[in-house]
């Protein structure tokens, strides 16, 4: 039961021991978990299409938010340009593309706000009106809350970039954060399809 004498072997030369990056692994894990949450809300939305006992119905009140969608999806492109810039150590270009990404996200949020304002005050659709209202505000709101979280984190990076605290060495962390933003954009494609194309 006591200690066993153990010969110590020579430490090998510092070979390559490649392992995946922990930040990327963790972000992909988070994305998988978040996808499951969205999946459940999407299932609920699809299941309740056409089951509301009273109006208004999606066809009566929903307009397809084309401009919003273009803004959000192109923000995925601008953030990719920002990632490319920081890899090339071009901090000026990075800051510009990053700021544009934040702006596009903010436009999307504002568009959602305008849409909800119209739905609530003109069409009288709230979360407690009928099943459509419950599922619509939940699903779109879940996505919007992810956009808000994303914009907060992107803005933090933007502040660091503007104050010169962000260095090209942080490029990798920025890329991990960008993964989250790509995810938020990709989820919108699903939400958009389900709510505005299939559900309407």
């Amino acid at each position: 039961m006591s200690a066993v004498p153990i010969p110590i072997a020579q430490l090998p030369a510092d070979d390559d021991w490649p392992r995946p990056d922990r930040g990327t692994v963790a972000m992909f894990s988070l994305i998988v978990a978040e996808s499951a949450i969205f999946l459940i809300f999407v299932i609920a939305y699809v299941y309740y299409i056409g089951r509301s006992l009273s109006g208004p119905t999606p066809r009566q009140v929903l307009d397809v938010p084309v401009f919003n969608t273009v803004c959000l999806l192109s923000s995925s492109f601008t953030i990719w340009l920002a990632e490319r810039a920081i890899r090339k150590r071009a901090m000026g270009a990075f800051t510009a593309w990053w700021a544009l990404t934040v702006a596009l996200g903010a436009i999307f949020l504002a568009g959602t706000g305008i849409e909800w304002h119209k739905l609530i005050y003109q069409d009288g659709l709230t979360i407690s009106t009928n099943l459509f209202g419950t599922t619509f505000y939940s699903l779109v709101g879940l996505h919007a809350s992810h956009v808000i979280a994303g914009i907060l984190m992107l803005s933090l990076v933007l502040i660091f970039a503007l104050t010169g605290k962000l260095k090209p060495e942080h490029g990798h962390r920025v890329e991990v954060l960008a993964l989250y933003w790509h995810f938020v954009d990709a989820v919108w494609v699903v939400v958009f399809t389900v709510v505005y194309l299939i559900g309407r």
Partner: protein
Amino acid sequence: MADSTLPAGGALDLPSAGEAHPEGERSGGWLETLHSWVTTVDHKRLGLMYIGYGVFFLLIGGLEAMIIRIQLLRPQNNFVSPEVFNRMFTMHGTTMVFLVGMTLIIGFANYLVPLMIGARDMAFPRLNAFSFWMTALGGLLLYYSFIGGVGLQGAGSAPDFTWWAYAPLTEKAFSRGHTADYWALALIVSGFGTVGAAINIIATTASMRCKGMTLLRMPLLVWLNLVVAGMILIVITPLTAAQIMLLIDRYLGGHFFDSQAGGAPLLWFHFFWIFGHPEVYVLVLPAFAIANEVIPVFSRKAIFGYPAMVAASVGIGVISLGVWAHHMFTVGMTSAGNAFFVLSTGLVGVPTGIKIFNWLATMWGGKIRFATPMLFCTAFIIQFLFAGLTGIMLSIAPWNWQLHGSYFVVAHFHYVLVGAIVFCIFAGFYYWYPKMTGKMLDEHLGKLHFWLFVIGFHLTFDTMHIPGLLGMPRWIYTYEADRGWNTYNMVVGIGGFIQAIAILIFAYNLVHSYFRGADAGPDPWDAWTLEWATASPPPAYNFAVEPVVASRRPLWDLKHPEDTDSRYE
């Protein structure tokens, strides 16, 4: 890859705990000790806090079980009121699954995974601390409902709608007061903690492995916890989503599960069991993981069929995602739906069967040492087999229609949860307590604990099948004397008392051995995985030099340089 190397300075007799723990010598008073534990990001301390938290709630949940059993001891008993009875079985279930099972398995994973893969800490130590404190907050919220749950007309002071909380029972109209809110919030919060821990475990296993630790050289405990962490990501989150929907219903007037407005309570059933059934495997795979480490070491043989064990674990994880509706045969699904879930449930029996055969083959011809950890694991194999067989019986839809909601089901899943999971967790305690504290758990008390627990377990849960077959429903507050269930319930209750005594002996042993136990030394069991290569308890940095491994049993290689595993793998 070169030969295995160890941080040890030529021998395994490493610095004693005092030297290895310089912070232990800083005698700054209890306040400083408390501060160091609250602010810690060390995976070992967080693991111990998870485990301590789990043991605490194990005692609470056990107390609730005893209240249930005392009430059912005799027909027409009035030990507690029907309302209290409902709260007791709800809180017992919720506590045991979320506050005991989850915290204990995550605690062991937290403590052992970095040590076993030769890492200094988890990939994200601060996320780790965050996860623990979220889990702790979840438990507090749940139990605060006893105090703060009283709402309108004094209705309800703890959740009383069973642990799966079928809608619309949880809707505002039927659950007044705030008990359902505390229940939902507690599980959302602890769910965040669990998902954070899972992300951490995945990142740690992927990115923190020491040199030479390829995926197929990882100890099986690490493999199984990796599978479990992957499952947690997609299993706990549906519950979180459903709880958010429930809170939207309760607070914002939504209609997700409100049948008055066209909502479908059935949707809650599906969402809950999409979480609820894989959750069983989330709990049982880490129990298997403990058996995978204990059985080879005490049989003095390498695990039989390592690749098959890995494949079977991944297989269980995948199949378990497609079996949830076998909890819902009585809901009234289509024949095709019934057939699908009967067959998919039967399919789980294949990888679990592979595992049982591999454990038996590991023991076969081995030089078995029946120390307490091995006793628990041996009982586990037999009991898990029985539990699996009654599970296959219940997965047959017509049989299920007959027995759904009866005590047969209760007996079946307690056979899994206690007979398999709790037994393996006890084995894990006896096996790793020396590593965690530097002291051996008392072997006499351990054997007494084992035999009392195994006798109490079989008295309770073997017997419980029979009133189930005779038609005794679950959740009933009391029963008439002429139903023929009296003796069985009396025996079940007596078995419960014996188990309670055993658990108290175990709790006493934990405390007693910490102060009076024999010194363990770094490697008391002559084991083969990396955690035994460092001091007991390990220093904050785990390994002075990053280890290098060349096989699945690095310590075997070092102890037997003439016959290393790396030559055969």
